């Protein structure tokens, strides 16, 4: 997700759930990973899982802050077979609120056949961290407020898909004090076909501040069948203005349900102590908002009822812009003629171990048992063959000493002086074995040249057409010798139709790779001051695939649709029109 963007003056004033920071940011409506879905369906596995998102809210949380209330954030984990917790997502931080209703949703796949134990931890985030992106917050530095556990099927199988749990201390001990409750609501994710861009404006809002004017912001919620409402987004805060105009909000159908679903739009006056005062609210569906825009008319806010009477207020809501866009999915592009082209690069550094030694990651077993690299190529190959129709794969090696006697950080795996392409997965396997016979393992581990070569292939293809997207798979055993060199190459490649999947084999500590996969908040920066246009890296540790905790398909394809869409959407590239069949 986005870069190190800070909120405005104090955290909590920025928009959540509906704002796109940059055109090249990966869209959040690609919730349904249709690349994974399509792959499974092709094998008849579609009945086995559903993609869902969880909406969280809590009540009566413990008050940890001295001068104000707690600033809670929720973190969701899945409990793995060995008992360890793996984080799958976190909400935003809500300021000064002991009964928060978080807007950010957590997505995961609900697999019907297996037990999925979940854990929820609530933290109070210290004020000094309020301006940082949520993903970069270190949990050890925050104050723990309580936790709850359950199994995903418990939530999904309830009639209203909602479960309320009591929060308790770590290790499940009952607390001396009441720690409050957590409510989890699950909903299936549907392919978001439509996205709406709305620009809201208000006039004549009531003044709720004493020494200045109100600081209004909007919060939009969707009403669910059970009668409650789930917040879907909030605008940024406009300071000191009773006739505010907010930045455009982008909503996907996943967020608002259908155009006729009633939405509750509340206008609050922001207060830094968290006690936002409700100025007024109204209820309109997306279709009704479209009508307001067309007619140029405003809708009056209703004041919260006291003494049973609701007052119609002078303040009005206008929809200055209403743009409906067809959101094409990843599959729409692929099925219309976009091609995915895979390229492979194999690590020939000495850290893999002497290939003649059975302990080596590169040991070719005469009995036919595949080594880590061969397994990675086969498993990854299953996926890439599915999506790459021409089956011609550029294949390179790096970090080895070629027959010419020099160490190369990008040599043709098939040993050919002219062409670097091989045919099919069998071609990659054959070239790999040829490489092992002719190239001596050396080092150091440097990705820069391979990335630059792949970037050149991707860049040059643009002169012929723009319907190709490239994916470079780097299969490596370890730790980079020069992280900055790799960052420089990645930054230069970040504006091209290219994604880079780093597959880690063996048991090394791959923390460095996680830095490159910029999920933790910060955009990569080159040594010359250029910043990556978008996140193009994804890292997959094979040992997690082999231990069954992660399917190779899901691991490899997890970020690809988002990275692909961030490229095509920022350039307004649409799927090609179908020629008559």
């Amino acid at each position, binding site marked *: 997700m986005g870069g190190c963007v800070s909120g*405005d003056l104090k955290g909590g004033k920025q928009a959540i759930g509906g704002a796109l920071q*940059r*055109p090249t940011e990966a869209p959040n409506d690609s919730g349904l990973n249709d690349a994974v879905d399509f792959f499974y369906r092709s094998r008849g596995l579609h009945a086995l899982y559903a993609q869902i998102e969880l909406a969280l809210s809590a009540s009566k949380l413990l008050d940890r802050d001295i001068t104000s209330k707690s600033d809670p954030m929720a973190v969701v984990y899945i409990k793995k077979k060995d008992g360890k917790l793996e984080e799958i997502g976190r909400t935003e931080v809500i300021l000064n609120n002991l009964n928060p209703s978080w807007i950010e949703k957590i997505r995961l796949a609900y697999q019907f056949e297996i037990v999925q134990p979940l854990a929820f931890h609530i933290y109070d985030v210290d004020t000094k961290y309020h301006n940082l992106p949520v993903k970069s917050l270190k949990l050890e530095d925050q104050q723990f407020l309580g936790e709850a556990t359950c199994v995903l099927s418990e939530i999904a199988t309830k009639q209203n898909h909602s479960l309320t749990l009591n929060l308790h201390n770590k290790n499940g001990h009952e607390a001396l004090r009441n720690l409050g409750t957590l409510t989890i609501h699950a909903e299936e994710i549907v392919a978001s076909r439509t996205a709406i861009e709305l620009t809201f404006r208000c006039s004549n809002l009531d003044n709720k501040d004493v020494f200045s004017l109100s600081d209004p912001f909007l919060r939009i919620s969707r009403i669910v069948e059970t009668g409650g409402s789930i917040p879907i987004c909030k605008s940024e805060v406009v300071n000191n203005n009773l006739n505010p105009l907010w930045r455009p909000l982008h909503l996907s159908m996943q967020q608002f349900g259908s155009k006729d679903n009633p939405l509750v739009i509340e206008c609050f006056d922001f207060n830094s102590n968290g006690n936002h005062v409700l100025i007024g609210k109204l209820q309109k569906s997306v279709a009704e908002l479209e009508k307001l825009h067309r007619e140029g008319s405003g809708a009056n806010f209703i004041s919260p009822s006291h003494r049973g009477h609701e007052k119609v207020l002078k303040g009005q809501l206008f929809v200055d812009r209403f743009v409906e866009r067809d959101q094409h999915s990843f599959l729409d592009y692929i099925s219309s003629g976009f091609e995915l082209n895979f390229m492979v690069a194999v690590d020939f550094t000495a850290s893999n171990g002497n290939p003649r030694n059975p302990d080596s990651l590169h040991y070719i077993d005469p009995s036919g048992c595949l080594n880590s690299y061969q397994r990675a190529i086969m498993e990854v190959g299953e996926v890439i063959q599915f999506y790459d129709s021409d089956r011609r794969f550029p294949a390179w090696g790096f970090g080895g000493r070629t027959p010419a006697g020099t160490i190369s950080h990008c040599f043709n795996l098939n040993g050919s002086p002219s062409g670097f392409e091989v045919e099919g997965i069998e071609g990659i396997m054959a070239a790999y074995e040829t490489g092992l016979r002719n190239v001596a393992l050396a080092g150091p581990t440097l990705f820069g040249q391979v990335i630059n070569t792949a970037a050149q292939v991707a*860049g040059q293809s*643009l002169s012929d057409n723009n319907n190709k997207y490239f994916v470079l798979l780097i299969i490596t055993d370890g730790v980079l010798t020069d992280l900055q060199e790799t960052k420089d190459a990645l930054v230069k490649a970040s504006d091209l139709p290219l994604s880079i999947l780093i597959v880690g084999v063996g048991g090394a500590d791959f923390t460095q790779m996680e830095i490159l996969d910029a999920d933790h908040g910060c955009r990569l920066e080159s040594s010359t001051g250029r*910043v990556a246009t978008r996140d193009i890296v994804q890292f997959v540790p094979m040992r997690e695939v082999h231990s069954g905790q992660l399917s190779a398909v899901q691991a490899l394809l997890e970020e690809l649709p988002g990275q692909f869409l961030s490229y095509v959407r920022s350039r307004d590239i649409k799927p090609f029109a179908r020629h008559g069949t």
Partner: protein
Amino acid sequence: MDSAPRTLEITVLSAENLRLDGKSVKKDAFVVVKFDSLISKSTKADHEGGSNPSWNQKLEMDMPIHARFIVLEVQCKIGSGNRVIGTAMVPVSDFFGGYTPVNYLHFLSYRLRDARGVKNGIINVSVKVKGLAVSGKNLPHYQISSSSSSSRPTWGLPAVEKNYPGGVVTGVPVWCASRA
């Protein structure tokens, strides 16, 4: 890199995390895009954006023949004057002369640094090289194909980076071992 003057379409998109005097910028940030002190254009100020302003404003500028950088300067209107918040230099080689097609739309982002060289936010722009500049007159037109065979000679750059007042240089181009 060919030395015919080109028109650039620079869209100043947004900036992130701007600070001034140790505090987040509150409002009225704008960007000055320049090749040197003589050729510059500014965006409008963003009144509401605070420390994360967005402009989405397209500026068309003729790129001088031997330009090597575009300078992006983020400033803020404070009182009656302007303060420079941060500057970034965009190498022309980041969008011209590489292996992408000439008219490719480049989305680029750069680290801003303040007057003391301290990091101060990020600026996001997009750049597209359009056709030859209209004011090109009859300048000789050296064309290099944009596919990169690294054995081609690259055109050199003058040792002194001054703004040519429009005169034509004839003669043998200088071989330069590295691309700028």
